[in-house]
């Protein structure tokens, strides 16, 4: 399948997940919020967040079983860079109340001005960062 077609189809599944969680449970499927929710919530809400994360982690193996190949992962950064990036992503998504799923998919689909501002901001700093990385590369 062409990468753009796979992107469209995969994106539709992501949208289906976001729509389904709202229509069934009334919840926003924002991954940073769900992950943080495991730490800060108790009771059923915590259990629901754990169930979502278990499903999310089971996604790639199910994909591998259905398609016969694991999803590709290239160009993984060095461990120190990943550790620094992880800190920024964890802290930044909590401070900014969302990530690519909560602001990028659910927020834009809700036509939220806050999410639109967040998406423009993280796209801008992400693009600047990658451009700077390319400039530094030998």
């Amino acid at each position, binding site marked *: 399948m062409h990468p753009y077609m796979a992107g469209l189809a995969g994106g539709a599944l992501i949208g289906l997940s976001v729509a389904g969680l709202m229509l069934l449970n009334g919840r926003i499927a924002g991954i940073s919020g769900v992950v943080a929710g495991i730490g800060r919530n108790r009771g059923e809400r915590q259990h629901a967040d754990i169930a979502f994360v278990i499903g999310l982690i089971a996604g790639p193996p199910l994909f591998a079983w259905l398609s016969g190949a694991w999803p590709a992962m290239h160009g993984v950064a060095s461990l120190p860079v990943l550790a620094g990036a992880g800190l920024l992503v964890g802290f930044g998504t909590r401070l*900014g109340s969302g990530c690519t799923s909560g602001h990028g998919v659910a927020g834009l689909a809700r036509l939220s001005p806050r999410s639109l501002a967040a998406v423009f901001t993280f796209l801008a700093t992400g693009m600047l960062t990658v451009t700077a990385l390319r400039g530094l590369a030998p």
Partner: protein
Amino acid sequence: MSGTVSGTMNRTVPRLAASLGAGLVFGLGLSLSGMLDPARVQGFLDVTGAWDPTLIFVLGSAVSVALAGFTLARRLPRPALAARFDLPTHRRIDGRLLGGAALFGIGWGLSGLCPGPAVAALSTGALPVAVFVLAMLVGMAAFERLPQPRSEAAPAARPPAPIRPEGPVASG
């Protein structure tokens, strides 16, 4: 208190199953879309280099389907399995939102990973992904230790306002 709310509280198992299913479909979609691949995500952010537009197709498709679902949700009194729609209540575009998004974008650009793909890719067993997710959890925990401003103080103690106020509060 909440045990008297028949019809919503005894749907715990279906709700957990819905969460599990939504996570699974999300993970499957990420896998199919190619967004688990840090090189592809960084390729999208590399607008001055060899730009890879795939992420636009993923995001456009996901937002379109979610928009249809949310449009339907707006016409319903409540979700199928829960008492109310639980939506963000903040309206202000402030320094926290933009500062947080800016920091997130830097980390996203450095790694090509954001929370969804990183957590999903834990199942590949790749050590670098585990390191990223561990650092992400540390970053989240660090945020929780910061003093919170009044508008967001103790969010757990103040449930978000329901869009249909008559629904029973099913917190905790």
